C-alpha cells in the first residue's frame, strides 16, 4: 500500500489563526481560555470559553461567499485555503475530478437555525431566513470547500460528536491509501459558542468552574472552544514527485464503539481503537513515543483514558509522554480531532512535545507523564492522537515523523 503524507496544514484556533501561530502557542504553553464578553453568555452560569478573536472573514472570503456561510463553514474554508496553499498542490482537472473532501462537525451551522427559531418563537414572526437550511447543514463546510477548489470527488461530512474530525481524517487517509482518491482535504470545524448550545452544555454539568486542567486532580470539567483544522493528504510518491515537503506521515487509523453508555465511556472501547490504529500502522506499542490525549478534563474521561492507555501499553505506558492540548485550545468538539491531529503532526516535524498546561496536582488515577505545563524538546518517531465521542464512538490516528 502506498504511504500517505500530510503536505499542508491549516489551523484556525483560539491560540492562533494560522498553523504557525497555533504551533508557537502550543510550544509556549499559551492558554486560549478566557472570560467571553458576549451577549450569548449573559444567562449562562459559566463565562469562560476559548473563543476566536480577530477572525475577519472579509480578509479571506468574498462578501457573497460570507453571506452563504455560517461561522463554522467559514472556519472550514479558510483553514482549507491555508492547508492547500501550504501544500503547494496544483490541481489538475483529473485531480479535481477524483479528489476527496471529508469534514467533521458535531453541530454544524445550527446557530443559524437558532436565529430563525428565535424569530418564530420569541418575535412571533411567521418566517425564517431563506438560507437557514444551507447555512445550518453539517456538510456546509465540505460543500463550500469542494466548490471553492472545484474538487468533485468523494466529499462528505462525518458527525460523531467529539471524534468527528478524527473519523473524517481517518477515512480520508484510507481513501488516499487505497487509491480511491489522488489526494484529500480532511479535517473539521466547529462554532459552538451560541446561546442555545451553551445552555445545553450548562445543563450537562460538565463545564469546568475555572479553566481546563486535564489529568490534574483539581480539574472540574471541560471548556468549550471553537475553531478548525484541515490537512492535505497525498500519497508519498506523488508528493515527492512534485517536490513537496511532507510535514509528517499518517500511518494508521483505528475505530471502535464502546456499545455501553450514551455518555459514560468504557476503557475497553478506546483501547480497542488504539490497538487497531497500531495494527493498521504496523506498529508495536513500544514504537510510540507520544499520545495527544482526548484529555477533556472531566474526571471520567481522564481516568478512563488513562486506564485505556494502560490496557494497550502495559508497563511501557510509564515511558510514554501523554499530553492534552485541550488545556490550551479547549474542547472544539467536532474540530478537536483535526486540531489535535495538526498538533501531533507538528510535534513530530519539530521534535517538540506540547504540554498539558494548567496542571497543578497529580491525580493517582491518571499516573502518566502528562508533559506538565512546559513543552518538552523530544523527538519521538511515532505518536497517536486519541478522540473519543459521547455515545462511545472512538477514533485514533497514528502518525510517524517523515524521514
Amino acid at each position: 500500500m502506498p504511504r500517505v503524507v500530510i503536505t499542508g496544514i491549516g489551523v484556525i484556533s483560539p491560540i492562533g489563526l494560522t498553523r504557525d501561530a497555533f504551533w508557537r502557542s502550543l510550544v509556549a504553553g499559551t492558554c486560549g481560555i478566557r472570560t467571553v464578553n458576549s451577549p450569548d453568555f449573559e444567562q449562562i452560569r459559566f463565562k469562560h470559553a476559548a473563543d476566536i478573536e480577530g477572525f475577519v472573514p472579509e480578509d479571506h472570503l468574498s462578501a457573497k461567499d460570507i453571506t452563504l456561510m455560517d461561522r463554522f463553514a467559514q472556519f472550514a474554508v479558510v483553514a482549507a485555503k491555508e492547508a492547500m496553499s501550504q501544500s503547494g498542490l496544483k490541481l489538475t482537472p483529473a485531480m479535481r475530478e477524483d479528489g476527496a473532501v471529508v469534514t467533521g462537525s458535531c453541530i454544524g451551522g445550527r446557530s443559524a437555525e437558532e436565529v430563525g427559531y428565535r424569530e418564530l418563537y420569541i418575535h412571533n414572526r411567521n418566517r425564517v431566513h431563506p438560507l437557514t437550511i444551507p447555512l445550518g447543514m453539517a456538510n456546509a463546510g465540505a460543500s463550500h470547500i469542494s466548490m471553492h477548489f472545484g474538487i468533485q470527488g468523494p466529499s462528505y461530512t462525518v458527525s460523531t460528536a467529539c471524534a468527528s474530525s478524527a473519523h473524517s481524517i481517518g477515512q480520508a487517509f484510507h481513501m488516499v491509501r487505497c487509491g480511491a482518491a489522488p489526494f484529500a482535504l480532511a479535517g473539521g470545524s466547529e462554532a459552538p459558542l451560541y446561546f442555545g448550545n451553551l445552555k445545553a452544555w450548562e445543563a450537562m454539568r460538565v463545564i469546568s468552574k475555572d479553566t481546563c486542567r486535564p489529568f490534574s486532580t483539581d480539574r472540574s470539567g471541560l471548556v468549550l472552544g471553537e475553531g478548525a483544522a484541515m490537512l492535505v493528504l497525498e500519497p508519498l510518491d506523488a508528493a515527492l514527485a512534485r517536490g513537496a515537503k511532507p510535514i509528517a506521515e499518517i500511518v494508521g487509523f483505528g475505530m471502535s464503539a464502546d456499545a455501553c453508555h450514551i455518555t459514560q465511556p468504557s476503557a475497553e472501547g478506546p483501547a480497542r481503537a488504539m490497538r487497531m490504529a497500531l495494527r493498521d500502522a504496523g506498529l508495536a506499542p513500544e514504537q510510540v513515543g507520544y499520545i495527544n490525549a482526548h484529555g477533556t478534563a472531566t474526571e471520567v474521561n481522564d481516568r478512563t483514558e488513562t486506564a485505556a492507555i494502560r490496557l494497550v501499553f502495559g508497563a511501557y505506558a510509564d515511558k510514554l509522554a501523554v499530553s492534552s492540548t485541550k488545556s490550551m485550545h479547549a474542547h472544539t468538539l467536532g474540530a478537536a480531532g483535526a486540531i489535535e491531529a495538526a498538533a501531533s503532526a507538528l510535534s513530530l516535524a519539530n521534535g517538540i512535545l506540547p504540554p498539558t498546561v494548567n496542571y497543578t496536582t497529580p491525580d493517582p488515577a491518571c499516573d502518566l507523564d502528562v508533559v506538565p505545563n512546559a513543552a518538552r524538546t523530544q523527538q519521538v518517531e511515532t505518536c497517536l492522537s486519541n478522540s473519543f465521542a459521547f455515545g462511545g464512538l472512538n477514533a485514533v490516528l497514528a502518525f510517524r515523523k517523515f524521514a
Partner: protein
Amino acid sequence: MPLMSDSIQDRVLKIIANTRRIPLESVRPDSSFEELGIDSLDRLNILFDLESEFDIEIDDEEAKKVQNIPEMIAGITQLVDAKASPES
C-alpha cells in the same frame, strides 16, 4: 402534581421515582443511588427536574458533592430556605 403541603422530602422522592421511572414505593430516604440504578445521566435528569420543581438553581460543584438522598434533601432544603429568606 405534588401538593404544596407535601414535605420537601416527599417531593424529592417523587422526583427521583418519576425521573428514574420506578415505583415511588421503591424510593426511600435511605436508598442508595446505586440500589436505585441511578447513573450519572439519571443524576443530571433528577437535578434538572429538582430545579424545575423547586424553582431553584443547583450549583455544579455543590451537586457533585451529593452522595445520597438525605444529602440531596438537605441541599434542596437549604436552597428553598435561601430563596424564601429576603436577605439572600
